[in-house]
């Protein structure tokens, strides 16, 4: 096949990578702008801070990527994160369970929440929005019930997850590991490939022998499990599990996925894009703090920059096509 009939982006792998990760351009612009505006921004410490601050959103967003790739949505991730963390802290503290067991229980709770979501969606035929909105309330309520509304200290051994190893903050390490896991699942495993097929055309996927219901169970369970990890990381950073932790984070997580190039109608999305999306949000918040933007204006600026970031991407894409 003659080379000149090839779409341009097939030619160079780096070009392809950039073309498919348009959010990256926005991130680069943002980083350059902030480096110029604030002398404090471009230090190793600050960049590591940004990494730490991105970690929880990014981990939630990796989980949300699975769901969004299938064309679903998971509004419950913030609440599930809080419930998982509270479960860990409570079983380890009040129930006196050894911390490794408590951690497993906590992860199991996250996965269980995901399975309930998926059950309602796959077998109850509830729209994902409704099933996970219900879970948003249920998980948050349970977190409050278990904790009686008060923070519970995290077991010390787990709270080390909030520390640093040498210079590297552990939340950043966990984020990278979860990102790699997400990327491998999406790209290389059967459930991952099935997610794309289901999101692209669920009926065609079913007629190709994919058990759509079962794969949805896997998808939402993963989302719940990732939320649990995010919740544990968050609580470790604070050394305390808060019933109200991560409230509203679902919108940030979904935004990160969409900024990263996924489509809410399914079939598209990548772990790397999501990572970039989460970084954009974290860089933005960090930058506004460094620049001492007033509280009232911050929300305006964040809104404008999110819109611009994605606009840069869509315009660039239109330009090359």
């Amino acid at each position, binding site marked *: 096949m003659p080379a000149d009939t090839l779409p341009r982006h097939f030619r160079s792998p780096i070009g392809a990578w950039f073309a498919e990760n348009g959010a990256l351009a926005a991130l680069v612009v943002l980083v350059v702008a902030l480096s110029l505006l*604030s002398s*404090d*921004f471009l*230090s190793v*410490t*600050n960049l590591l*801070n940004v990494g*730490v*601050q991105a970690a*929880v959103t990014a981990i939630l967003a990796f989980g949300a990527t699975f769901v969004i790739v299938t064309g679903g949505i998971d509004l419950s991730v913030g609440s599930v994160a809080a419930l998982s963390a509270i479960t860990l802290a409570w079983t380890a503290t009040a129930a006196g369970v050894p911390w490794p067991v408590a951690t497993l229980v906590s992860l199991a709770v996250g996965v269980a929440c995901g399975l309930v979501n998926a059950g309602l969606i796959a077998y109850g035929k509830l729209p994902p929005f409704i099933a996970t909105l219900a879970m948003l309330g249920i998980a948050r309520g349970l977190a*409050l019930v278990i904790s*009686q*509304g*008060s*923070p519970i200290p995290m077991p010390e051994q787990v709270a080390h997850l909030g520390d640093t190893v040498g210079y590297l903050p552990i939340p950043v390490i966990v984020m990278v590991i979860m990102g790699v896991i997400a990327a491998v699942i999406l790209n290389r495993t059967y459930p991952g490939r099935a997610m794309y097929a289901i999101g692209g055309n669920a009926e065609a996927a079913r007629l190709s022998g994919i058990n759509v219901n079962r794969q949805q169970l896997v998808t939402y369970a993963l989302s719940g499990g990732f939320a649990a990890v995010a919740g544990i990381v*968050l609580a470790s*950073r*604070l*050394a*305390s599990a*808060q*019933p*109200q*932790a*991560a*409230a509203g984070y679902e919108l940030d997580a979904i935004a990160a996925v969409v900024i990263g190039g996924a489509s809410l109608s399914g079939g598209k999305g990548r772990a790397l894009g999501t990572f970039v999306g989460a970084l954009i949000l974290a860089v933005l*918040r*960090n930058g506004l*703090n*460094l*620049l*001492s933007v*007033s*509280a*009232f204006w*911050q*929300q305006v600026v964040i809104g404008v920059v999110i819109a611009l970031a994605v606009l840069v991407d869509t315009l660039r894409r239109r330009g090359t096509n």
Partner: protein
Amino acid sequence: GTSGGGGSSGDIKIGMSVSTLNNPYFVQLRDGAQAEAAKLGATLTVTDAQNDASQQVNQVQNFTSQNMKAIVINPVDSDAAAPAVKAAERVKIPVIAADRGVNGVEVAQTVASDNVAGGRLAAQELAEQLGEKGNVVVLQGTPGTSASRDRGQGFAEGIAAYANVKIVARQPADFDRAKGLDVMTNLIQSHPDVTGVFAENDEMALGAIKALGGRAGQQVKVIGFDGTPDGLKAVQAGTMAATIAQQPRLLGRQAVDAAVKAAKGETIKKTVAVPVKVATKENASEFQMS
């Protein structure tokens, strides 16, 4: 419905709308209220307005449908609570305002700690601990809430008296511990010379202390607000320099006590000021009892 009046308080139904239970401070307020209701033998129904003024109006409306004999309202917003209070008073149900006042209507009693005064106290305490000079960062609560507004205002007024104490940054962390941690981490980058922090509640203060690590209580003095159990623990540990303790349990007790009296038709004082007090390492243990 229930039969009214009577000497016993056994059949007195009281409704209480709390601004939010997503904060340990209000959980304590509720606990105090419940303890007092149990003691007096009244039936107390607590609802959570989730920081939404209109949901609070709904809840007060619902209390009137339930023929509550008295209502305790812990306003989400002092201005926005007025119509709800009016509606209750129209059907002759006495209303007690707890923790925050209600503007523009007269309630049977206001049991409150004064947030503006608390802000001023925080300024004084911080200035003193800093030796009347230093660079201060303010962690603001959710923008637009009255608690944030009033405490911020009081603190600004108070700190103005100290020429050498400068507010170098004001950033919102939405009364949230995790946000307090992140925002403080960022502010340390742009203001490495910070020596004092005023956080508009203990949750953010605890986040800031995490961010400061070993510097908290040493090079940097952090002052919180509320006097939550975790906050007081930090004060005792020396990582938090002080917290403006509001004695929420006492507030809750007092409010229910007044509500029961009002329901029985007894006359009660228009205002009961539950003092806000500076809790420092020296006196912190006293507050945990309340």
